[in-house]
């Protein structure tokens, strides 16, 4: 079942005060996301991945095109209760785990904020939070009550993943959510996304530079290049029979390690 439909989505940034300059960040992209689907959005820096995610998260207004979630046009949601409904269903993790925290508050805040969306569920919040932190491999006593600058980048990223785990949305847009997490913990955190998918039917749009990692975790890979989706297919298709020259170039950069394991 399709839950998200993106059609002809375009974003043009206008920069500069006197001499206006237009940057075509996302150029007329269309795709669909099904329930329980794990999609990777792969592309070089500046290809428009974050811009796409921010538009879907209803944080950045598209220049044109439409985004529909469960049949509803996302950008026509206006009332706070509708917006809360949407963010309850569709949530994000941002690329920069430093900027994701207001430096003045303890990290508990981003976790507690989840209950503003869920409402009162009767359960003990504190124990839910602790459980979520344990799921991402953190010791609750070590991180709760601390300020963002007292934690490492990887710890901060995992707290963001814990926030999504607490919320259990239908769709997660994760913008390089594990870039600062060491390889051994990374597998566990990525596994958490899979578990959300299996247990709650969550779909994931996973944004990464790393085609090798995408190959491993996803059901489908979309390659983004200069604002356009230039290639789309199952990991095998993309890896074994790339159509676009950029994909071929990307594949060459995938470390040998991955290739050996996957046998090509």
């Amino acid at each position, binding site marked *: 079942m399709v839950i998200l439909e993106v059609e002809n989505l375009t974003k043009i940034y206008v920069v500069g005060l006197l001499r206006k300059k237009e940057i075509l960040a996302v150029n007329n992209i269309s795709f669909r996301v099904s329930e329980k689907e794990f999609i990777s959005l792969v592309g070089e820096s500046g290809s428009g991945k974050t811009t796409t995610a921010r538009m879907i998260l209803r944080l950045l207004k598209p220049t044109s095109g439409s985004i529909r979630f469960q049949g509803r046009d996302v950008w026509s949601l206006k009332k706070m209760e509708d917006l809360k409904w949407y963010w309850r269903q569709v949530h994000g993790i941002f690329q920069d785990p430093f900027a*994701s925290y207001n430096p003045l508050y303890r990290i508990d805040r981003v976790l507690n904020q989840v209950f*503003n969306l869920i409402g009162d569920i009767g359960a003990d919040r504190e124990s839910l939070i602790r459980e979520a932190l344990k799921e991402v491999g953190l010791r609750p006593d070590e991180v709760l009550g601390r300020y963002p600058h007292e934690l490492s980048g990887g710890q901060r990223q995992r707290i963001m993943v814990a926030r999504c785990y607490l919320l259990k949305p239908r769709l997660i847009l994760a913008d390089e959510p594990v870039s600062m997490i060491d390889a051994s913990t990374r597998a566990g955190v990525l596994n958490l996304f899979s578990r959300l998918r299996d247990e709650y039917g969550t779909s994931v749009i996973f944004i990464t530079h790393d085609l090798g990692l995408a190959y491993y975790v996803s059901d489908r890979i979309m390659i983004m290049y200069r604002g356009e989706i230039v290639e789309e297919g199952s990991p095998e298709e993309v890896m074994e029979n790339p159509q676009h020259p950029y994909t071929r170039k990307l594949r060459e950069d995938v470390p040998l390690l991955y290739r050996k394991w996957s046998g090509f």
Partner: protein
Amino acid sequence: MIPPIVMDLIKIKKLIISLSIFLAIVLAGLIGPIVYPVNPVVMTGPIEQPPSSKYPLGTDRWGRDVLAQLLHGIRNSLSIGLTAAAISLAIGVTIGVVSGFKGGITENSLMLLTDVVYALPSILLMMLIAAYLEERNPFLVSIVIGVTSWPWVARAVRSQILSLKTREFIDMSRMAGLGDLRIMFEDLLPNMASYIFMAFVLLMSGAMIAEAGLSMIGLGVTRGISLGIILYWAQLLEAVRRALWWWFIPPGVCLVALATSLLLLSTALDEYFSPRLRGE
């Protein structure tokens, strides 16, 4: 227990010096009139007397005690400075936050208003008011200074908001369903608290100078005394040419000391806070 920030702050020399000067003058304005209970606006002695044991800072043309005038003048100048700064800050921060946060037409129209007020000097407004109102009390003068001196605050606050707004933590709060108002008060304003405090200090310094400026050209308070008013009369009656130094030097020094100590205070605070604001 003393919070660590206070311990850090008292180590800054510039801050301690400026704060001591400022507080010393404030104290003089607050308790001076009580310790030295001489009426500043009635004749209490012979005219234009140099300082003596009876009149520590001499008297003016009408035989009024200059020390008494000075102490009351400090008090009124400070209260005009405080009130005007509070008014400017409230307007400037509100306009800056709203325009930076909302964007679009709201931002454009508020910035247009800011530019208009920026171009309109307080002297002009005061001249208009003076034409209608024979009597101008300190509160009226504060309002005039307050409603004309906020544009730079609005601009500075707006640009701060514009840069804060792009930080992801704002989006995290937004995605948690926090409304505009809560984001302003929970995420934006607290991150600008030190900045806003510095703006207040600068506004206050500017307002006291502005009060003196208005008074010097005869557009100041008509009731009561202020540092500017003492200077106004001293100037009008050529105290400088006639070397009646006790009449114009004390209020001049007090005014300059008040204004510069506040300026110094704000640069000291800036030096302390800026590296921290940029993120350790």
